[in-house]
Structures are given as C-alpha cells and as structure tokens.
C-alpha cells in the first residue's frame, strides 16, 4: 500500500511515511521539531502533539491526563500513524527559538560578550599580510615561492610551509599575462595579501590574493554545547565580535543528554546523523551571521571550536563510544587543526578549524576555555569555576595549581527530567518569588510571553522559595498543610504537586506544576554539583572560606539568582560579592584563543597543568552526595546565612544544631 501523508502544523510541513514508523520519526522526516528529551524512548513525556485528523495506534497514556487524551493529545514517540494525519504541535513541544534565531542570539550574545572585551594584545591564529614583493631580476633571481615566504617570515617569524595548490597559483597572481598577437608578456605586480595560519608548530600560507585584502579577515568562535550552539563572528584585525548567533543543538532530536546521544550513535548511521546535525547547525549559524553582517563566507579564515568532549568528537566525526565506557578515554584530547572544508563547513576553502584541547572524557574543551576566560589559571587568589550543564564541571585553583572534576548532574537545570521544565526559551519562567502568608507567587518569563514552563533559573528560584516559605521540608518533601490550596493531587500516583501557574494563565492551557519527583531530581542535581565541589575542596585541603572568587558559567539565562543558589545548597555559602555569573565562558575562551597566539600557547600549558579527579573512583563522593541531598545540606553549619533564614521561620526555639 502507499504511504501515509502526515501534515504538521504550524508550518504546514508534510511528509509521507510507511506504516510502522512512529509519529516522532515522521516529524523528524518532515523537519517539524518536536521536543524529545529521551530520544524517543517514551520516558520523558515531552513530545506531546495533538492529532487533529486521522487515526493512530499505540499507548501513550502515562504522561497525559484523561482530559488531554480526550482532546487528542498523544506522545509522538509512542504512537504509529494508521491513516493520513493532521497533527498540531502545541507550544510546549515546539523548539521555540529555532526559527526565531534573532531573539536567542541576542540573549546568548549578551552573556558571552561580558568576557569578550577588551581583547588581549592582538596576534590572531590567522593573519593577513599585505605584501609588496620586489620584481625578480637577473641579479636577484629568487623563485616566487621563496620570495613570498621570506617576505612573510619578516612579518611572522618561525617555520613556514606552503602547499602545492597555492604555489601553483602564485606566478599568475604576481604577474599579469598580456597577449599581443602571437606573443605575450608577463607584467609584474608584487602587491599581494598572504593569509597565514598557525598549524601545529609551523605557520602555513593558506592562500595568496591580489591586492590588499588584509582588512577582510574574520574568524568564528564556536561553543558546541549539549543544548545550545553559539557562534561569534570576530573581526581578526580588531579582535572585536561583529555579531553573534545561537541556536539549539539539533542533536536534541536524538536525546537531551550526552549519554543518550552516544547510545544513538551506535545505531547504523547514528554517528553520521549526529555529526551532520551539528555541522548543519554551524552552517545555519554561519549563514545567519553572513546575512546579518554582509561578510562573505570566504572571508572567514578560521573556526575555533570549544565544547565538551563528546560534542567535539561528534563535530570531528571521532568515535564517541569509547568516552562512555571504562576506562573513559577520548579518541583524541588535542585533535590537530584541520581544514574546515573536510568537515563540510563552508568558510574559506582552505580555512582551518581549531579545537580547544580536552582534559578527559568528561572534562572537555569547554572547561579549558572557561579556565582561560575566567583567568583563574593566573589568579593569585583561590578561585572556583563551575560550569553548570548536563554534566557539571568544577575547577578549583589559582596560578599555582588547577584541579578539575566532572559530575553527572543530569539535565534538570536545563529543563530535562522535570515535568514542566524547559530550556531558557521564550515563555520560560526564569525568576520566581513566593511570599507568605498566601502564598503569593510572582514570576517573570523570558520575553514576557505567557508561561509555558520553568527553565533552570526558575526551577532554582522555585526550590529556594518553596523551602524558605516552609512549603518544603529540609528533605525536599512537600508540606501541603502549609498551603492546601496551592497543592493538588497528581493523577498518576496521588502525590502532592505544587501549582505554580494555573491553566487559565499559562500559555499551554495546562497547569504548570512542580511534582515531588521534580523536587527530588532537582535536589539530586544540585547535590551532585555541590558534592563535586566538596570533593575538590577536601582533596586539596582548603576551607570554603579560602575561596575568594566563584565563577558560574552556563546557559542559564541572565536571571541566575545567587542567593537562591546558596539557599538550596547548589553553591557554597560565601559572600555574594565573591560569586560572579560569567555566562558562556566556553565561547569566550574560544574567542580569546582565536585572537591571541599567546593564549593558544597558554591553553596548551593549562591543559597540562590540570589534575583530573575521577569521582567514580572517589570513595567519599557518594557520602558527600548523600549529605548534600538535603536543603541546603545535612550540615547546616556550612550554610550560616540559610540557617538564619530557617531560624527566622521556625522561631528561635529551634536554632540549628
């Protein structure tokens, strides 16, 4: 029989599929984005769609209410089309920000620009030199190539190389051939521009152009995040970011976290699909930046890519499975510079892609970039860098030492594994206050849109505020008796749920709630990060009060509330002025390296200085994790500020122990 026609709205995207294909797969083929955090295993409940016309078969009741099922809701990954279908993708399942790249660009650009200025002494990885080569004579019969190379060497000392392709073109670039009747004449024109790139220990002449094009020299600083891909188009003659763009990593289709994607890569064609997804994302960003700035792709000479180890492996098409399996060894920790064209990235045809070096399978090039950008590698004072993502990376150190570890924090702060969680996109609740008595809830959403769910900052606020309001006990159990009207019983297990926004006010026509399971996930996530910090602190033998600076990096949105982070015990209880949110330090570090060869050198040294601590073999980690699975922590003495809040609430009779 012929295929089934499936039409998705909004966007009117259509595809034809054979029977036995899930609706989620159909959406993928149609190019319609449906959020699927678990990658189609039916365990996240995020791929909610509404079947408007036609029949599907399959069970998808687990995550849906009876009312929703009546209205045609299904989970796209759990049902199979049985006829032609018209399917609506509701707002909460859409990857907002994919089409509207502009808004996200602005949001992400602002954070990453914080670390962007002023540039260090400019010495970009790729430079353009306008040269004026003297015409060869019988007295000075040096060959064209040597003539060029010696002129370049005067500008940029050190070993030089130049490929055959460029050498072939060189004589015709330096001369004009004028044909007159049956004879011809070569006219010398020595004004050319040579593009020189650092390639390992030597400099390479990438290309030679006629005339002076030295003003047209651009590079792309890239952060390939698990959730977001961010690109800065940097003018290499000034070191200033001309424009920035960001989009969601479209690998999310294959799973929200790194491990799910690595598993997907093991399917036939899976690795290639993941590789292509990230290449296409970067291509989209280049296209967008080129359109906005009117800078041609051919004038982008290089890319510096930062990202966690798995993302950089996907980008380069390296084997990722080895990362996941003991003894957790990456395929390469410092991949050599390669031609971007080899990966299918269309910048200058001979342009180079550099990769930030990685420390290990779970401490990647994003962390080395963060160390560089936060400058903790040359700080006098003891500093802590926390990169909070699906994997939480922690670095402790100063100019004397650097030690790093990584904790599998889970995607809760990015909206995964939380029922009403979402990424920091339009309509996400990004800050929240609860005042008692009441409780009276006030919240803000990104772009002021009607609320669709909670992003990381909103969830951190919610946990802190529920706790301080007395609606959560220190073990993270709801206390419905404190505000009975704000709790409802969950349909599935009868557990208590806290209603943040009722359906009449939400943008998705359903209640935005926080469940007991959500709270447990969030507490485990924050505990794993705090326990990782604790492990480093203990292993080095310092006290929390010795930490003078704390840098928080991550794609949180700009409303990260430091006090909420301390209240839930995600961050140590230090004076707020010591804690600084630095946004996307990964792209900032990539940019620094791109505009400074000194920084490129520095980065190689930083990688060698880092001592990696594997928490899997740290016997004390589980213990630290359990004691951190409490609000804010089992040992309240570590959190004197929070203790005073609790005492104020419970009354002085119950002073902390």
């Amino acid at each position, binding site marked *: 029989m012929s295929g089934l026609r499936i039409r998705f709205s909004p966007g009117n995207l259509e595809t034809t599929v054979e029977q036995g294909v899930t609706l989620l797969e159909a959406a993928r083929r149609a190019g319609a984005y449906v959020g699927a955090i678990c990658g189609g295993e039916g365990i996240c409940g995020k791929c909610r769609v509404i079947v408007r016309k036609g029949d599907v078969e399959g069970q998808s009741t687990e995550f849906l209410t009876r009312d929703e099922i009546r209205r045609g809701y299904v989970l796209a990954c759990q049902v199979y089309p049985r006829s032609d279908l018209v399917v609506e993708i509701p707002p909460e399942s859409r990857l907002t920000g994919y089409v509207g790249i502009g808004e996200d660009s602005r949001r992400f650009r602002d954070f990453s620009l914080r670390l962007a200025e002023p540039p260090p002494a400019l010495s970009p990885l790729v430079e353009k030199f306008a040269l004026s080569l003297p015409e060869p004579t019988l007295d000075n019969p040096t060959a064209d190539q040597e003539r060029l190379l010696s002129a370049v060497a005067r500008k940029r000392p050190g070993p030089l190389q130049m490929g055959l392709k460029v050498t072939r073109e060189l004589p015709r670039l330096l001369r004009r051939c004028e044909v007159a009747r049956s004879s011809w004449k070569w006219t010398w024109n020595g004004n050319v521009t040579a593009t020189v790139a650092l390639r390992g220990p030597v400099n390479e002449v990438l290309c030679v152009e006629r005339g002076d094009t030295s003003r047209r020299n651009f590079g792309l600083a890239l952060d390939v995040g698990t959730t977001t891909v961010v690109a800065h188009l940097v003018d290499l003659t000034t070191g200033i970011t001309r424009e920035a763009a960001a989009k969601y990593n479209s690998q999310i289709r294959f799973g929200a976290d790194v491990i799910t994607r690595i598993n997907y890569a093991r399917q036939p064609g899976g690795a290639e699909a993941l590789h292509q997804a990230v290449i296409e994302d970067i291509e989209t960003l280049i296209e967008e930046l080129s359109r906005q700035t009117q800078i041609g792709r051919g004038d982008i000479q290089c890319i510096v890519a930062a990202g966690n180890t798995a993302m950089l492996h996907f980008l380069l098409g390296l084997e990722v499975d080895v990362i996941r399996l003991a003894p957790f060894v990456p395929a390469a920790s410092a991949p050599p510079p390669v031609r971007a064209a080899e990966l299918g990235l269309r910048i200058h045809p001979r342009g180079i892609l550099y990769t930030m070096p990685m420390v290990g399978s779970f401490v990647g090039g994003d962390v080395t970039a963060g160390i560089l950008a936060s400058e903790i590698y040359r700080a006098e004072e003891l500093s802590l860098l926390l990169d909070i993502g699906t994997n939480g990376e922690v670095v402790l150190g100063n100019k004397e030492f650097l030690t790093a570890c990584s904790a599998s924090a889970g995607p809760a702060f990015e909206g995964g594994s939380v029922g009403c969680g979402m990424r920091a996109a339009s309509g996400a609740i990004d800050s929240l206050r609860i005042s008692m008595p009441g409780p009276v809830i006030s919240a803000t959403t990104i772009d002021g849109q009607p609320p669709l769910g909670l992003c990381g900052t909103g969830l951190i606020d919610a946990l802190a505020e529920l706790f301080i309001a007395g609606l959560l*006990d*220190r*073990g993270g*159990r709801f206390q419905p008796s404190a505000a009975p009207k704000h709790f409802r019983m969950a349909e599935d297990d009868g557990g208590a749920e806290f209603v943040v926004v009722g359906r009449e006010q939400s943008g998705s026509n359903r209640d935005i709630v926080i469940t007991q399971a959500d709270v447990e996930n969030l507490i485990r996530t924050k505990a794993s990060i705090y326990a990782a910090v604790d492990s480093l602190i203990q292993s080095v033998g310092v006290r929390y009060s010795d930490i003078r600076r704390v840098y928080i990096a991550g794609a949180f949105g700009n409303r990260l509330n430091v006090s909420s982070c301390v209240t839930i015990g995600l961050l140590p209880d230090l004076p707020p002025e010591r804690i600084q949110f630095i946004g996307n330090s990964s792209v900032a570090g990539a940019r620094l390296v791109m505009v400074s060869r000194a920084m490129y050198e520095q980065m190689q040294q930083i990688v060698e200085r880092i001592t990696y601590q594997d928490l899997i073999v740290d016997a004390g980690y589980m*213990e630290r994790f*359990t*004691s951190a*699975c*409490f609000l804010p922590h*089992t040992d*309240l003495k570590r959190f004197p500020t929070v203790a005073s809040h*609790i005492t104020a609430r*419970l009354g002085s*009779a*119950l002073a902390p*122990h």
Partner: protein
Amino acid sequence: MSIPEVKEKWSARVSEVTIGATPAQGGTRARTVTIGGAGGIPFLSFDGALPHPPAIAIDVLDKQPVGWPKPLEEVYGDVWADPVQWARRAKELGADLINLRLTGIHPDEGDWPPSKAVEIVKAVLEAVDLPLIVWGCDFPEKDQRVMPKVAEAAQGERCLLGAVSQTEYRTLTAAAQAYGHTLIAASPCDINIAKQVNILVTDMGFPLSDIVIYPSTAALGYGMEYIYSILERGRLAALSGDKLMAQPVILDVGFEAWRVKEARADEEMADAWGPLAYRGPAWEAVTATDLLQGGADLLIMRHPEAIRAVREAVGQLMQGDGK
C-alpha cells in the same frame, strides 16, 4: 621505663534516654530503663564513663507469628497466641523492656482497626510493668491512623515509638510529642540519612534528647560489617561532639538473626552444621555481641540462651566497672 599513656580523651558523650515512667513520674512502670550516656568507646571504661550497660528488649508480637523456627517455638509456642501472656513470659526471661510489634494492623496481615491495637497495647501495659517499645507495621498509611491512637492510649508511660523515617515522620513525631513518648529514628545504614531524619524531626520541635537512632541491622554473615562500620563511625562522631549523632542506638538483632538460613535450617537440611537448638541462639548471640562492640545501647532479642550469653559477655567486659 614508663608505659605511655594510651587513654583517649573524648570531648562529648552519648546522650541518655530514659524509657518508661514510674507512678511518681506519671506512669505505671515498676522502673524505668536509661540507655546511652557513654563517654568512650564500648567497654573501654578507662577512656570514659560507661554508666549504663546495654539494655535488652524481648520481642512480642500482637498475634501468633508465622514461620518462627523451632528453637523459638519451644520457648514461646505455648503463649504466642496471646500477646499479654507472651509479654509476661518475656519478663520472666529477664527482659529489660518489652518490644511490641503491631503486625496485625497491616492491610495484608489482618488489617486490624486502631481500636484493636490500642486494646492490645493497654493490655500489655497492664499485665507487665516493664517499659514498652511499640512499632507500627511499616505501612505508612495505616501506621498514621493507628500510632497516634496508641500514643494517646499510652500517655504518661513514656514509651519508645517506632519508627520515623526520612519520608514518613510527621504524624508519629507529632503523636510522640503530644503524648510524651520517645522516638525511634530509622535510616538505611547511612550516617547522613540518620542525621537528616534527626534534623527533620527536631525541625518539628521534637527534642533531640528523646530520640533513639535505628541505623538498621544485619545478621552475622549477611552484611553485618556494614552496620558495624556505621555504628562505629556514628559513635566516634558522637564522642567527638557531633550532636546529631549523639543519640543512643537501638538494634533489631532477633529479627535479623532468626531469618537467616544458618539460624533456621534444621539438622535434616544441614547435618554438618550441628544441632539447630544450639546454632540458632548462637547466631543471635554472636550477632549481638559483635554489634555491641560497634556501639549499641539497646538490643531487641528473642532467644533466652542468646540473651544469657550476651549478658555474660557484657558482664565480663565490664568487670570492675562497679556495674
């Protein structure tokens, strides 16, 4: 040549909990039992005072147990259909306290109403003048209905009620507080969770000084070393000044020791292991005496021979302590 001083100096001691109340104290018990108070490591009385030897409570069920092995049947078989008679037997066998388990209230075990549980508790209190420990059936919804009634009925007797946990603590804590009882705080072999339960309970206003820690128990050969190390770490923390670990410890030795096959298999099944009549009590006694070394203050036990052996061992270890 002088012998170097090897005494440890501890900065804190285990807190004391008194269970039961005499008529002068508003109850009807003939005497009370105080546990805890240790100022040093178990049985090293030169380090710090050990004012109270470990107390032993004997298990009494509210209805006839199923599957108890022969050595126990020989001791209790004639009385175990009646909790009152069983409690009397426990007293005759030298129990310091009665440990009453309300098993019949469990929805799968009879689903008795709260009134029946109250009746049994009252009858046991009337028949035997020893301090009383009462456990629910470990089915939270049911315990939340039954235990407040039990606590009310036993008001003034200062019983030890079990058990609050990380997730279920509000109802029982409130009941113990309202009617003047002490509380067992249970945790699954994890020091941090033990502390967390203590914090949750005291955050409700319940005094830390009325809590007894139950860190779970395991029998010899079945992970006893895990419990041992938790006991020891908890005790060292207590002696070093950790107030959240300073509560005395109760262990459910009888229940754990008598469910392992070494204490149950008779001679027909395990000929080479020797007679069950000796092996069963021995298993319970060895489990108990080992765990006492880690730091335990109150043991729930079953077999009189095991209890005799434990008391004898404790007596020898504490010889010359004036106790």
